[in-house]
């Protein structure tokens, strides 16, 4: 009945390399399931791909075009080569969020380590691209163009702080949304069980309908949040990428 129990990482197959525990856990299982789901649906849709697409093929082409367009709109025309990276991020997070709604599943995006690792990946990749493209001039992003020179002592620390806060915001936003939603689901599910325990089966079932109805609505809301948060992660990644590619735009 602990609503946080769902977040426990449970070992399935114990594994260790050089004394470091890398056991295959429920988290690892659902990560691989997310990969399998994304790749499987893609391949299924592209099997016997035709010039005039079928339903699933249209869906996959629409998803691809959507990511290409999002990258173009937010990362600029130079963002085109990064579409595979952006699409992988989007679909991986989306699959993780959506699969996490299934009862009994594990939501790997509800763990701050995971979202922080993804956010750091984005941070490191975009920063590396920035320095690769612009060299030392990339430090210029810490000073907005056109601002008066004497503002530098104020602006530069603020800009540095907002730059460093990027991965933290990215990671916490996804983690908090996923964890909160899933906790809510389990809390309301717990109310149903409590009602039956308190009043007995007959009266308890009648009482339990309320929390069940709330849970139905919450599940729908969770699906929305799952898609929205994956999208937000993708869009912000694109925006950071644009900063790296074009500096001031």
């Amino acid at each position, binding site marked *: 009945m*602990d*609503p*946080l*129990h769902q*977040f*426990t*990482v449970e070992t399935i197959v114990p*594994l260790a390399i050089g004394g*470091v*525990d*890398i*056991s*295959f*856990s429920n*988290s*690892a299982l659902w*990560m*691989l399931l*997310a*990969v399998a789901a*994304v*790749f499987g649906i*893609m*391949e299924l849709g*592209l099997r016997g791909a035709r*010039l005039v*697409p079928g339903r699933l*093929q249209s869906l996959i*082409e629409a998803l*691809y*075009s959507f990511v290409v367009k999002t990258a173009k709109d937010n990362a600029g025309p130079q963002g085109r080569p990064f*579409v*595979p*990276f952006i699409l*992988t991020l989007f*679909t*991986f997070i989306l699959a993780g969020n959506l699969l996490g709604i299934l009862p009994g599943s594990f939501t*790997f995006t*509800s*763990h*701050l*380590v*995971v979202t922080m*690792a*993804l956010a750091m990946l984005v941070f490191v990749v975009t920063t590396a691209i920035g320095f690769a493209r612009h060299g030392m001039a990339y430090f210029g992003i810490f000073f907005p163009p056109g601002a008066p020179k004497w503002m530098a002592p104020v602006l530069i620390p603020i800009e540095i702080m*907002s730059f460093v806060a*990027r991965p933290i*915001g990215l990671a916490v936003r996804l*983690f*908090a*949304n996923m*964890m*909160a*939603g899933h*906790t*809510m689901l389990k*809390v309301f599910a717990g109310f149903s069980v409590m009602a039956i325990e308190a009043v007995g089966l007959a009266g308890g079932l009648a009482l339990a309908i309320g929390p069940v109805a709330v849970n139905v609505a919450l599940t729908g*809301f969770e699906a929305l949040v799952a898609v929205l*948060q994956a999208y*937000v992660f993708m869009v912000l990644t694109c925006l950071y990428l644009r900063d790296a590619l074009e500096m001031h735009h």
Partner: protein
Amino acid sequence: MKTLRTPIAPIAAGAIVALGAAPAQAAGLPQLDISTFPTQLFWLTVSFGLLYGLMSRVTLPRVDRLISERDATVASNLEEAERLRREAKIMAAQCEQRIAKARHQAEAMAEATHVDGEERIRVALAAAAARNTAAGRASSANDRTAALSLSATR
């Protein structure tokens, strides 16, 4: 940077605080259990890397090829249609020209036939008239001789 917020975040914060205050069976939040970090990071690297490899090497090039092939087909079909349209236009113009020419010829022929027919009718009429006149003259001459001879016998 704008922060995107969903209304669930404050509720969640409340829920987490409330749950944290409640007697927890486990030792705190599972998310804060550092001992699970290495395995999560390891499998995240594996699965994300795997998905990136599959997407960038296998799936997306196919989707890309598919879409560009379709675009090329549509473009070439449009071009072909445009070419055929132009050809049809030229052919229509040629037909128009030939019809006009044929009409011209027909008119000329009709005119010629008309003139010719009139001429022949005139000739025929003249001939007939001449014939009639001659015959009339002959018959009236006969009549006269007949009359004369009749009166002579009386």
